[in-house]
């Protein structure tokens, strides 16, 4: 591989890593939002009326259903975060490898 190719590969990997990090941040925001909702549901009386906004309409939903729904979403998001983090770690290794390769090449050229 030529130096140029390696450099290109390196920038590509870096931008991929950045994308993954943005995705991770988005997931964190969602996790926090759902956590707030879940906490709020925990503090509610059992007979509280809960509505879900679907499209342009508010539909009354059962409390336990809403709770279960948010719980499930939390689980899903947590799993996604784990997946995203393994991806980030792998990508970081790739980036480090590419950087080493680039450095080696540079020192050879000098």
């Amino acid at each position, binding site marked *: 591989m030529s130096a140029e190719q390696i450099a290109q590969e390196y920038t590509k990997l870096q931008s991929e890593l950045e994308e993954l990090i943005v995705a991770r941040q988005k997931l964190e925001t969602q996790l926090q939002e*759902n956590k707030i909702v879940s906490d709020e549901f925990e503090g*509610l009386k059992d007979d509280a009326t809960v509505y879900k906004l679907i499209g342009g309409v*508010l539909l009354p939903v059962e409390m336990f259903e809403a709770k279960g729904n948010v719980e499930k979403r939390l689980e899903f998001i947590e799993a996604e975060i784990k997946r995203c983090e393994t991806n980030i770690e792998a990508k970081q290794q790739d980036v480090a490898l590419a950087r080493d390769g680039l450095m080696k090449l540079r020192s050879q050229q000098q």
Partner: protein
Amino acid sequence: MSQKIDLTQLNPEQLNAVKQQMDQQLQHFSQSLHALNVARSKFKECIEDIKTVSRDDNSGQSLLVPLSGSLYVSGKIHDNKKFMVDVGTGYYVDKSAEEAIQFYQKKVDKLSKESVQIQDIIKEKNLSSLAIENQLRLAAVRQQEQIAAAQKS
């Protein structure tokens, strides 16, 4: 995340890089702080609105309901002690005036706490930024002296 860097060990380029990084962080935190304060004042407004609407002399009060930005129909408050609160992710909960105020007050308190935290971080970063600037100046002076010495010899 605050790893220790000995500023006196860095050359001017590195100092500049660190300073840039620091400034970026500062900007980021300032933006966050601003967003936090905007959100907090919105919640505070909600509390005031609840207090106004739930006043006894406002029961059965007529009002205009916005259908769009420029279209209204007249309506009447059916129950001025009952509110529907957006708790997030598309869920809404019926609450009494007191419960609704509590809900928003809790949010305001939480945001106030976080706001203080961010302000502390910003203060700390500002100090670091100043320290870096100082080092940069020193480095510049040193460089000048070196150049002067080189010219003499």
